[in-house]
């Protein structure tokens, strides 16, 4: 039924002569001025058959990703070329739409696809008129179309309809069409759709329609009155207003969400007029008891507060925000408070109130834990009714979540570069420590509320995690010794406790690290250092135990902590002494043989850091075995690099070696060339692409260091060498590169089947070529017998094979002239391989052919008829 009329069209796909026709059309419609990125010939030949498949209700396109990718392609096409031309040159597309509309029983996915496709085309005004003339738009988006069919029950069809309309709204004609065909009312209904996806898309569509219809108003701000607004905008605003005044919680939430997006994405002056019209019903919502749409109101106020339109201190928004801070439930209000505190422009009084709101639960906790009048508390006066907060804290279902939220919000504040209000950080620190004490059963509360909180919080991982996060963040404030002592005590309690879960332990380590780093960097660090050293001694005892934990997660977190600790505190003599008087270094070394590869990798990284210290220690008189030990570490790591069966430890070794080379580790400096050569040799045969990429980075660092050392690095401020000296240095460096078999390694990596490896090798080789091959002296030396023809990978592979076969039978050194260690031979290869060409092809992703539109079209065609045979049979 379908294929017949198509037969004729299929037999005459676009032909070369079409160009003339195209030019004529372009002149006629005058809309395609851009350079055209035309659908290629192969695609336009395949397209009619694909359309025929899609229009045939007997053919199932089971894989929805086909249609999604098909639409993606059309989106790209219509962005780069005229949609109208696309339709005119490929009449099969219009036929497809017509035909699907005529089908008695189209599949929901096909109908949804057609709605979206038509929307994409109708985004262009000329194309919109073209489709309108054929009455396709009214048939698809009007009341008689899918809207009234049984398929409307399918969420995918409703979703396609909304997305189609959304794409279309790019010009006023589309808005007029939608207003006149009753589509707006449909969208209003879809706001409350049972499918989250459809409801959300409908809401976004209304936002788009409102902002689009008012776009032209931004030029004449003084005349803005909502009574003059376009019909479409007026309809929308009346709808929003009615929803806000309705008693339906869901309608109110939808409208608040819509307004949140409008104020969030549009900062034009008309938004102020909109607010002045809607503020009354919104403020009314705040006065209800209890407030139902709390979360949505918070979103709305935050989105408005971030808009420059409302930033002036006299703006009525701030009155509403103040009202919200007073009326909203403590569980809802925290987000608003922290959002307000993050604002640049906001009245100070509102900020102070917001901070009080955030501190209130902490104040309650502090008071509940202590004897009356023992602590001054966090607040001079309560902003809200503290009884509400106390009730929430004394109830099992709300206590943990209120505290987690509050702690997280207060933590966010710690990272602000400048806090606009004074934060009482000492009482805050006390309250956080108190919560951590509650959670581990260390607090002896004096009040009834304290007892209740204590019972609820004991063993609560959620609160433990959030409290440890903020405890770490509070380390950047200067604190008196007595409080530092209480922080150390609680941290040790968590680090020691057998009940601490692995995730909580990790947070404890993180908080400990932050405090230690902060204390070591603080101007008053000397005052606290004795206290800190005492803590470090206890800490290393715990760490020893944790490094022997039966859980790999714990051993790993302990190693990661150790690595960072050493990295940050290695300059502290006291730290080094405590570290080396403990069993920690020995245990770390033992973990190089851990059964879990993640742990082995972390042990490698930790040993990499520790070895810098071991070296410092070994320099001192009286420490004799350091050097021997150090050697064995290098050897151990090299052994891991060549023998470990899993990738993570090998990747860790190569990262350590890169650091050592960069930072000038004493053992590397002893014989850098030998070190690099042996590492590259080990990496060369590695199958893991990330180890290889690490090897390449090592090679890059090494070559840059060598060229720099010889004054050859590309530094604009470096003294310019005379050409003779430069030439000598270049020969020298080339000689060294050849000795360490750098080029053999780089060329091998260039042939690697893992693309990032080849890509990186190519980058390094191009840089080296620029450095080494531009010298005329070198050119002369290599010009004899040189073919100018650029060679590809096959030639390179053959060359490498020849090099290795030359090298094999001869003892080391004898094969220099023939193989990879001959500088002239290397330069010859470097100049012959088409590095630039390879660079271009490597920059393309390796699935670019399968991702191409031709491939997609072929796949759709090929799937026809095979679906029943090959049932979806996923994994």
């Amino acid at each position, binding site marked *: 039924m379908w294929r017949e009329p198509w037969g004729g069209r299929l037999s005459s796909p676009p032909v070369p002569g079409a160009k003339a026709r195209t030019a004529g059309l372009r002149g006629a419609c005058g809309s395609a001025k851009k350079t055209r990125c035309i659908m290629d010939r192969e695609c336009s030949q395949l397209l009619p058959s694909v359309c025929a498949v899609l229009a045939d209700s007997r053919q199932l396109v089971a894989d929805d990703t086909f249609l999604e990718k098909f639409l993606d392609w059309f989106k790209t096409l219509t962005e780069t070329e005229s949609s109208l031309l696309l339709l005119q040159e490929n009449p099969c597309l219009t036929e497809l739409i017509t035909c699907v509309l005529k089908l008695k029983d189209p599949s929901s996915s096909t109908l949804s696809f057609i709605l979206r496709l038509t929307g994409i085309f109708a985004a262009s005004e000329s194309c919109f008129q073209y489709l309108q003339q054929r009455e396709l738009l009214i048939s698809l988006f009007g009341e008689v179309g899918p809207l009234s069919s049984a398929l409307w029950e399918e969420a995918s069809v409703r979703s396609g309809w909304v997305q189609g309309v959304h794409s279309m709204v790019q010009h006023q004609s589309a808005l007029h069409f939608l207003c006149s065909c009753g589509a707006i009312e449909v969208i209003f209904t879809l706001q409350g759709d049972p499918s989250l996806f459809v409801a959300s898309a409908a809401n976004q569509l209304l936002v788009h329609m409102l902002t689009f219809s008012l776009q032209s108003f931004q030029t004449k701000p003084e005349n803005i009155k909502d009574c003059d607004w376009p019909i479409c905008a007026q309809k929308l605003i009346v709808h929003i207003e009615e929803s806000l005044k309705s008693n339906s919680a869901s309608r109110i939430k939808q409208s608040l969400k819509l307004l949140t997006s409008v104020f969030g994405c549009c900062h034009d002056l008309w938004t102020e007029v909109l607010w002045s019209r809607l503020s009354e019903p919104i403020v009314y919502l705040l006065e209800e008891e209890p407030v139902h749409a709390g979360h949505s109101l918070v979103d709305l106020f935050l989105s408005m507060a971030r808009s420059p339109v409302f930033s002036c201190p006299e703006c009525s928004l701030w009155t509403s925000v103040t009202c919200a801070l007073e009326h909203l439930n403590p569980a809802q209000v925290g987000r608003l408070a922290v959002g307000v505190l993050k604002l640049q422009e906001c009245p100070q009084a509102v900020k102070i109130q917001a901070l009080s709101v955030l501190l209130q639960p902490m104040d309650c906790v502090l008071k509940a834990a202590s004897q009356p009048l023992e602590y001054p508390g966090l607040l001079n006066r309560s902003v809200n009714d503290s009884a509400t907060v106390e009730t929430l804290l004394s109830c099992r279902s709300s206590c943990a979540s209120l505290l987690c939220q509050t702690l997280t919000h207060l933590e966010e504040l710690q990272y602000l570069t400048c806090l606009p209000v004074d934060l009482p950080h000492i009482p805050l620190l006390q309250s956080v420590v108190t919560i951590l004490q509650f959670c581990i059963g260390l607090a002896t509360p004096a009040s009834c509320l304290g007892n209740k909180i204590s019972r609820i919080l004991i063993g609560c991982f959620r609160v433990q995690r959030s409290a440890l996060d903020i405890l770490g963040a509070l380390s950047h404030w200067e604190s008196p010794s007595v409080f530092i002592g209480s922080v150390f005590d609680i941290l040790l309690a968590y680090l020691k406790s057998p009940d601490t879960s692995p995730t909580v332990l990790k947070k404890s380590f993180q908080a400990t690290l932050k405090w230690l780093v902060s204390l070591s960097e603080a101007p008053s660090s000397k005052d606290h250092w004795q206290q800190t050293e005492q803590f470090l001694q206890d800490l290393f005892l715990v760490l020893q135990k944790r490094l022997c934990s039966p859980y790999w997660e714990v051993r790993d977190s302990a190693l990661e902590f150790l690595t960072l600790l050493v990295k940050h505190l290695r300059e502290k003599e006291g730290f080094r002494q405590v570290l080396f008087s403990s069993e920690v270094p020995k245990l770390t070394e033992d973990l190089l043989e851990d059964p879990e590869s993640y742990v082995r990798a972390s042990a490698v990284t930790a040993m990499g850091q520790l070895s810098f210290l071991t070296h410092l220690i070994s320099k001192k008189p009286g420490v004799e075995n350091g050097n021997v030990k150090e050697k064995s570490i290098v050897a151990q790591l090299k052994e891991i690099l060549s023998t470990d069966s899993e990738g993570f430890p090998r990747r860790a070794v190569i990262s350590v070696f890169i650091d050592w080379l960069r930072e000038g580790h004493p053992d590397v400096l002893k014989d850098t060339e030998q070190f690099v050569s042996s590492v590259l040799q080990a990496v060369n045969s590695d199958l893991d692409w990330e180890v290889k990429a690490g090897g390449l980075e090592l090679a890059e660092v090494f070559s840059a260091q060598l060229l720099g050392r010889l004054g050859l690095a590309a530094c604009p401020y470096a003294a310019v060498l005379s050409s003779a000296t430069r030439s000598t240095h270049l020969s020298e460096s080339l000689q060294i590169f050849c000795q360490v078999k750098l080029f053999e390694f780089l060329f091998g990596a260039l042939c690697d089947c893992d*693309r990032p490896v080849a890509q990186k090798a190519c980058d390094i080789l191009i840089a080296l070529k620029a450095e080494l091959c531009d010298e005329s002296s070198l050119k002369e030396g290599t010009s004899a017998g040189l073919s100018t023809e650029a060679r590809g990978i096959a030639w390179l592979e053959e060359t490498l094979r020849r090099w290795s076969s030359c090298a094999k039978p001869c003892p080391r050194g004898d094969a220099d002239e023939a193989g990879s260690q001959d500088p002239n031979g290397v330069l010859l290869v470097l100049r012959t391989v088409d590095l630039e060409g390879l660079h271009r092809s490597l920059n393309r992703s390796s699935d670019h052919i399968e991702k191409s539109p031709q491939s997609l079209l072929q*796949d759709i065609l090929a799937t026809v008829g095979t679906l029943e045979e090959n049932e979806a049979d996923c994994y």
Partner: protein
Amino acid sequence: MPEIKVTPLGAGQDVGRSCILVSIAGKNVMLDCGMHMGYNDDRRFPDFSYITQNGRLTDFLDCVIISHFHLDHCGALPYFSEMVGYDGPIYMTHPTKAICPILLEDYRKITVDKKGETNFFTSQMIKDCMKKVVAVHLHQTIQVDDELEIKAYYAGHVLGAAMFQIKVGSESVVYTGDYNMTPDRHLGAAWIDKCRPDLLISESTYATTIRDSKRCRERDFLKKVHESVERGGKVLIPVFALGRVVFATPGMLHAGQSLQIFRKWAGNEKNMVIMPGYCVQGTVGHKILSGQRKLEMEGRQILEVKMQVEYMSFSAHADAKGIMQLIRQAEPRSVLLVHGEAKKMEFLKQKIEQEFHVNCYMPANGETTTLFTSPNIPVDISLGLLKRESAIGLVPDSKKPKLMHGTLIMKDNSFRLVSPEQALKELGLGEHQLRFTCRVHIQDPRKEHEMVLRVYNHLKGVLKDYSVQHLPDGSIMVESILIQATAQSEDQGTKVLLVSWTYQDEELGSYLTSLLKKGLPQTTA
């Protein structure tokens, strides 16, 4: 009314990107966190913004449960925990926890290496994510918090695959993940006890298929291999690296070893490639399965495929029979289908509703299914009360429901049924008796005490089996019912009798009242 809500963010009427949100008794659980093989952009992961609109993820979600290590069930996990910001507990079985990072690493490698993406989760993120995972044993009940508990059951399918029961109070949901009801050579069949959940969420990949036995398929497979080898050809079997037999990977011929061999062997018609599973659009596997014979390879080369191409399903999913069998085993009050195609689900849904008389749902992605529950409330019974019931002579039968009477004490979040006496004693309360009193008017001109005597005689005559007494104070007792002549009426010929009884003797009290209302017999007059 208590309700359970289920919203699939993925796997709702489709296959791939499994991610199902369940709200049960105020707890929110995410079941699986998978990725979609068919996309390279945002669409590969579930759209988590629908959860974040409810505030912070970690505050909203109580836990994430991963059913098994396949990427369409766990591929988005590091993204969710390390990039979107979920910081709460994640549960999976021990084998899943051991194998999951290997697959995630492989996925990262393909994405970063092959496609050159940079903004993707890193190895460190995968490790950090795995460190948050709490590994569980089969049949071990895990207490996520005071109210929420989960329990894993064996699911077959692949090593470590599990079905999970999620329970809050007496309400429960079972999520099957992918499962297999027929054992194969190295894995057994899924099993669950008769846990009667309020809802069973089942995969339905093979909703309409009843498959031939594994043995037949194995025989066919071997036959094809033998024939090809006898012809002097070679056989390539690209496979998924984990969970099934290893031949050459990857299974969809999209890169690596299997693709290299394919290129070498494709030109010889004696050779054969056997595709044992599903292939995503855009892969060479997909192309040859759908019959394409000329493939464009890198560098504009055209590869002509002359070798034979065969498709044999060895996938380990339950077929329609298996799904029905699992429903029979678990006896759920309702069923919800995910991880399948809409049309096939529709068919199975009808079958389930007909056979088991339970509601069956199949929400699309983004659609919320709400079902109302009537949770059972467990009550402890005092031993004294039980003994009293058995003394009455009723033999206890664990399978039959039994009606018990007693006093329900609701205290400290627990419910206990005790005898009324014990309740009074425990609560330190005195007993009050409630009596009903009714006035009965009797036409009798005689003196009061004579009239009472007449009533006494009348009752004694009618109620031969009851104890009827005439008390010294002039009142009459019939069992516990008290009858007194009282207050004069204005009319001398009418006397008023007060009949009073406790609610336990309601029946006798009403009977006496109606008896007296009929008046006294004339003969005695």
